[in-house]
């Protein structure tokens, strides 16, 4: 999945450089912060769901 691309592993973060156009790197108006929180939401909801799968969904 796309969340495997860790921004911290991208060397020298070219989108931060002067003159760089952040929209060349991030689509949908994402920036570094909002992209990280989107990825966090993906992980959280997917892990939650896995846990919920172990329970009887009828409880919800």
């Amino acid at each position, binding site marked *: 999945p*796309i969340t*495997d*691309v860790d921004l911290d592993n991208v060397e020298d973060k*070219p989108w931060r450089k002067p003159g*760089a156009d952040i929209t060349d*790197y991030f*689509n*949908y108006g*994402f920036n570094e912060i909002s992209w990280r929180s989107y990825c966090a939401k993906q992980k959280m*909801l997917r892990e939650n769901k896995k846990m919920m799968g172990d329970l009887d969904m009828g409880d919800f």
Partner: protein
Amino acid sequence: MYLHIDPESKQKECPWYARGFCKHGPNCRNKHVRKLVCQNYLTGFCPDGLNCPNGHPKYELPVMYNNQAEGSSDQPTQQP
């Protein structure tokens, strides 16, 4: 923009960028198609699916890209 990359090769939409982020930026071999995001899809569900005028940033990459989670190459590996 410096067209040191053959524009002919930019015909295919970049699957990473379509999912929200591509580390190759302007040097990517694939086309970066800028879109607005669908707020419904960001919330979790959009009834319009493929007919939605706004972008649905998917989580999974297409199968042929799955061995390249880091986006190390923009060329798809041909699966047998």
